């Protein structure tokens, strides 16, 4: 390890890490919103279940580099838009599946009780179903986030990359092992921190689960 190089490039590493975080947050934020909408739509129109999962499953099978490459001719080189379209489409399969699994896990008698208490469908969704579905939804967010953090590195090949830029452009292309190791460790740390962050968030949002654990 070339510690002097690390010291000289701390600013750049911090900026690349920030890029990486911003690209990940954008993809997960937009992906969650779209997936939530799709899951609600599927719940109302069951026949959409197969087609939506088939399309998102097909997108999921396309390698990230190929998906970026398919978008570049339309968005231009070094396009954040191309990167985000591809990243968001990878989150949808994971997130829709888990939103649906979360909603399906709400016991029917709980739904009936909420209806009996005079909740409107919207109130029932926000106050009863979402809180009960939360652990499964957060599980999906964890997988999606760790996946996207890995995929952001690949955007280095279309001129972006966050820590992927450090791994490939500063590291591999310049024979600088220190940079590659630093970028790799940075990406792993981001993934682990995000994962732990979601676990903490879930604990804060579902305090009743902790009470049950100690009881």
């Amino acid at each position: 390890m070339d510690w002097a190089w690390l010291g000289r490039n701390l600013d750049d590493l911090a900026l690349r890490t920030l890029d990486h975080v911003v690209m990940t947050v954008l993809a997960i934020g937009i992906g969650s919103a779209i997936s939530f909408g799709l899951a609600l739509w599927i719940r109302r129109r069951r026949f959409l279940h197969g087609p939506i999962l088939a399309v998102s499953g097909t997108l999921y099978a396309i390698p990230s580099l190929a998906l970026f490459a398919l978008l570049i001719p339309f968005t231009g080189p070094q396009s954040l838009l191309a990167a985000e379209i591809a990243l968001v489409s990878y989150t949808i399969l994971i997130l829709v599946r888990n939103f649906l699994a979360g909603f399906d896990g709400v016991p029917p008698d709980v739904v009936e009780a909420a209806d009996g208490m005079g909740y409107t469908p919207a109130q029932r969704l926000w106050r009863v179903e979402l809180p009960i579905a939360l652990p499964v939804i957060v599980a999906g967010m964890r997988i999606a986030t760790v996946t996207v953090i890995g995929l952001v590195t690949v955007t280095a090949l279309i001129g972006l990359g966050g820590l992927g830029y450090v791994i490939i452009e500063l590291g591999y292309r310049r024979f600088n092992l220190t940079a590659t190791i630093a970028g790799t460790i940075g990406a792993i740390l981001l993934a682990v921190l995000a994962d732990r962050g979601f676990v903490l968030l879930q604990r804060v949002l579902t305090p009743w689960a902790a009470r049950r654990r100690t009881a």
Partner: protein
Amino acid sequence: MEFVGAVVGWFTDPVNWSGDDSIPIRLAEHLLLSVVPLVVALLIGLPLASWVGHTGRFAGLAVNVSNIGRAIPSLAIMALAAMLLNRWLVDIGLRREAGEISTMVAMAALAIPPIVTNAYVGISEVERELIEAARGMGMTGLQVLRRVEIPLALPVILAGVRTAAVQVVATATLGAVFGTGGLGRYIIDGIAQRKEEEVFAGALIVAALSIGTELAFAVIQRRAVSAGLRGQPTPAVREPAQVGLPNAGI
């Protein structure tokens, strides 16, 4: 429309159908680059997972290693493999093959976690009563594994193989960054030379190959499952030992 014409023109250009940089050669390179690491990963992963699933030894370790593996970007593993192995490979006289070999090593390492996780989860979740019944019938440990545990776990084991196969085809595309052949060359070289139609056409072939791999393994998976198990719901996916999803950074 002009662009569509350029892409069609690329596909119909005879230059792209003969010679070193032609579609058939790149496709063959891509398949070879994918098959070798997948086979190596299967040879290492399946016996390991069978042993861990059957005996229950080191189960926590196997699952943890697989989960940590998910957090390491594929591109990073490939870059590290290239930087650490290439010099040594050149030293032992494999200059021309160095990029290919170090990429295959990285790809095999990346394909092992989904194979191990799924095979382990599948085998360890076979119901105890069935195993005890098999033991009661006088089967040895190896017979229980071969005749009871593996057939029952086969749908889950094959789901892992399918995940690994699709992932390997995807990571083979990234090999072009590290000097291998394969279909990724069209994308990487096309970006460098600003040939948009080549980038797009290469990406189309890669996408078709990946989706084809996914579908082919889905068929194998359905065919290979014992008739008695067909029609049963597949086991639910749980966290954190995620079954059936690829590693980060395909």
